[in-house]
C-alpha cells in the first residue's frame, strides 16, 4: 500500500465548512499522514529537514488548499520555496522526489462555470494550477489531475458529505 502525505494549508480552517468535512473524511485513514501546516508552523518557521524526511517516506504528495486569488495560501508557497531544495528536489542531483505522485486538492468558493473562458475568472482551474504542475514536473514527480470541490458557498451539507466520500475513495485508489 502506497503511503500518502496530505499537506493541508488553510489560514482560517476554523471558518471553513467545506474543508472541515473534507479533512474529517481522510485525516485518520490508514497509510495517510495528514499535516496541518498552519497549525504546525504558525510562525512560518518550517522545519525543512523534517519535511524532507516526510517526503522521502511517502509515495503520494497532496497539496490540499483553498484557491484564493488564483493560488495557494502563503504558507504552502513558503513550504514549496523552503523544502524543495536545489540538488535534492531538482537540479543535476535532485532525484529525491522522482516518480512520486503529486496532485492538488482544491476548494473554490466560485462555481465551475466561473472558471472558463466565458466566466468571470477567464481561465480554468487546470490553467491556474500550472505553476504547481510545473513544480512537480521539475521535481520529476508524476502530476495527477486535481480533485476540486467548487462553488463551496452554495453547497449543502449533504453535497459536502458526498465530496468527502469521493476524496476518501480517491485516496483509496491512489494507495493501490
Amino acid at each position, binding site marked *: 500500500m502506497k503511503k500518502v502525505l496530505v499537506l493541508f494549508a488553510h*489560514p*482560517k480552517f*476554523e*471558518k471553513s*465548512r467545506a474543508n472541515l468535512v473534507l479533512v474529517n473524511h481522510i485525516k485518520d485513514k490508514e497509510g495517510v499522514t495528514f499535516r496541518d501546516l*498552519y*497549525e504546525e508552523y*504558525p510562525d512560518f518557521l518550517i522545519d525543512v529537514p523534517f519535511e524532507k524526511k516526510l517526503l522521502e517516506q511517502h509515495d503520494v504528495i497532496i497539496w490540499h488548499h483553498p484557491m*484564493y486569488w488564483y493560488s495557494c495560501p502563503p504558507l504552502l508557497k513558503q513550504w514549496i520555496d523552503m523544502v524543495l531544495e536545489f540538488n535534492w528536489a531538482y537540479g543535476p542531483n535532485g532525484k529525491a522526489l522522482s516518480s512520486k505522485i503529486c496532485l492538488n486538492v482544491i476548494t473554490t468558493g466560485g462555481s465551475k462555470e466561473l472558471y472558463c473562458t466565458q466566466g468571470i475568472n477567464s481561465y480554468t482551474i487546470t490553467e491556474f494550477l500550472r505553476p504547481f504542475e510545473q513544480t512537480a514536473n521539475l521535481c520529476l514527480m508524476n502530476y495527477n489531475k486535481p480533485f476540486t470541490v467548487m462553488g463551496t*458557498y452554495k453547497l449543502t451539507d449533504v453535497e459536502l458529505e458526498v465530496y468527502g466520500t469521493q476524496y476518501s475513495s480517491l485516496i483509496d485508489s491512489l494507495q493501490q
Partner: protein
Amino acid sequence: MTGSILFDAIVFLLGAIICVSIAKRFGLSSVIGYLMAGVLIGPYVLGFIGEEGEDILHFAEFGVVVMLFLIGLEIEPKNFWNMRKTIAGMGGLQVAGTMVLSYFFFYLIGFEWKVALVTSMAVALSSTAIAMQTIKEKGLMETTFGNSAFSILLFQDIIVIFMLGAIPLLANTDKESTTTTHEAAGNLLDTLPMGYQTLAIILSVVLIIGAGQYLIVPMLRKVAQTGVRELLIASALLIVFSISFLMEYVGLSPALGAFLGGVVLSSSEYKHELESTLEPFKNLLLGLFFIAVGASINFVVIAKMPLTIGGILIAVILIKALVLFITGSVFKMKLDQKMLLTFSLAQIGEFAFVLLSFAFQLNILEQEQMDILLVITALTMSFTPIISIINERLILPRIGTKESIKRPMDHIAKSQNVILVGFGHFGSTVGRFLRSHGIEATILDQDSNRVDFLRKMGFEVYYGDATRIDLLESAGIAQAKILICAIDNPSITQEITKLVKEKYPHVELMIRAQNRYDAYELLNMGMENIYRESLDTSLSLAKDVLSKLGFRKYTLNQQVQNFIKYDESSLRRLAAEPKQGDNYIFKARKELEEQERLLNEDFKRGIVEYDNHWDSESIRKVLEDQQKDNPS
C-alpha cells in the same frame, strides 16, 4: 506626662503623623517634621513628654543601628574595601580639622582645656541619623556627595571608640575617687588591660564576619525553608540585636558593628529580604529618635542665656561647615557636591549625647556646660536640615554643575556600541541573543560573583553600579548607540535612564519595565522603548492555553500581535491621562482601580476579529443576501 505607655505611644505617633505630613506638604525633609513634633509634644510646649525624653533617646538610637545595618547590606565587601582611602582620608581630615578649630574656639571663650578637648570631640562628630536619612530620602546615596558623607560618618563611628577610650584619661584624678557612678565603664573593655582591649576589638570584628558567613546565612536558609514570614522578621531583628549587644559588651559602637554585619550579609541571597523586613522598623525608630531630639531641646537654658547659646550655635555650625568645605576641596569634589556635603554634615551628632554624659559622669564637665552643650547639639541637629534647604533652594541653583567635568580616563578597555546594564535572567537572555549575532555588548552588573563567572566564560563584563555616571562613562556611553537597561529594580532603572537621557541624549534607551505602572512612570519621563517583562510571556502562555482548547495557532499568533499593539496604545493613552492624586501609599488600591479601568476597556472592545480574509462563511452570507435581494 501620664505613665501610660499607650498614651505616650499615641502622642508620639500622632505628633509624627501630623508634623511629618505638614513638613512633606511643604517639600521639607521628614527629619524636620519629626523634630517639630518633638518640640511640640516636648516639656516646653505641650508637655506631653518630659524627663523620659532621654530614655527614649537611648532606645531610639537603635534606629541608627538598624539604619547602619541596612546601609551595610547595600555595600558589598569589595566596595567597602575600595572606599577605605576615602573613609580614612576624608574622615580623618574632617575630624582632625574640626577638633583643632573647635578646641581653640571653646578654649578662647573660657572653657578649661580638658572641657574644650571633650567638647571638640563631641563637635567633630556629625549625625549619621539626620544626614543619612536626608541623603536616602533625596536618593543621593550614589553621588560623590553621598559617598563622601557616608565615608566621613563611617570614620566618625570608628573614631568614637577611641574618643570614649580617651575621655577617662582626662578625668580629674582627685575628683574621680568621689565618683561612684561610673556607668559607661560597665563594659568589658574597661575592665581589661590595654593589650587585651585591642584583641577584644579584633576578635569581635572577626566574630561578626565569621558568624555572618557560617552562622547567620545557614540560619536564614533554615528559616526560609519554614516559609513562615514572621520568622524572617524575627531573625532579622535577632541579628541586629545580637550584633549591638556584642558591640556594646566589648565597648564598641553598635552602629559600627551593625554596619559590619550588614556588609558581611550583603553578598548573601537574603540581602533583599532583610532589607525589606527591616526598613519599616528603621524608619519608625529613626522617627522616634528625631522626636526625642526635638523633645530634649531645653528651652529654659536657651531663655537664660540666648546670646551665648546663639553665638556658640553659629560658631559651631560655621566651624563644621568650613572644615567640611575644605575637606571637599582637598578631595577635589565639584562645587555643588561640596556645598551639599558642607551643609548636610554641619551638625553635632547623636554621639555627642553619649560623649558628653560620659564626661559629665567623670566630672570633666559641669552641669551648666553640659546643659549648654546638649542644647547646642539638639539645636544644630534641628538647624542643619533647614540650612540644607536654604542651600538647595537658593544657593545650588546658582552654582550647580557649572564646573567643567574632568575625570580620569577609564580602565574599561573596549568600548562597544551597545551597553547592557544588568545581566540577570532577563539581561543574560538579551545578551546571549545579541552575542549570537556577533554583537558583543559591554555588560555592567552589580553582582560581583556573576561578574567573575561571566568573565571566565569570555564575556566582557564589568562590575559596578550603573547609576554612577563615571562608570557609564568608562563603559563608553559617550560612543554608545544603545543602552539596554535590564535590571529588575524600577527605581534604579529610573535613576539610570534619567541620568543617561539627561547627559547623553544621543543614546537610544531600551528599557525593561516590570509592569504597567512602571511603564507609566517611564513613559511620563519621556522614555520611548519600554519592554514590559509581564506582557509577552503572559500572552504566550494564554496563547498556548487557547491552543490547547482548540483555537488555531496561526490565528492566535495574529491575535497576540494585535493584542500587544492594542495594549501598547492603551498604555500610552492611559499614561498620558492625569492621575487621581499621586497617592503612592495606597499603591495596591491604585493598581486595582487601574485594572478595573483596563477590564472595562477590554469589555468595550469586545471579542475582536482583526481580519476577514479567508473567511468563507462571511463571503457566503453576503452572496446569499445578494441572491435573496435579486433572485436570478
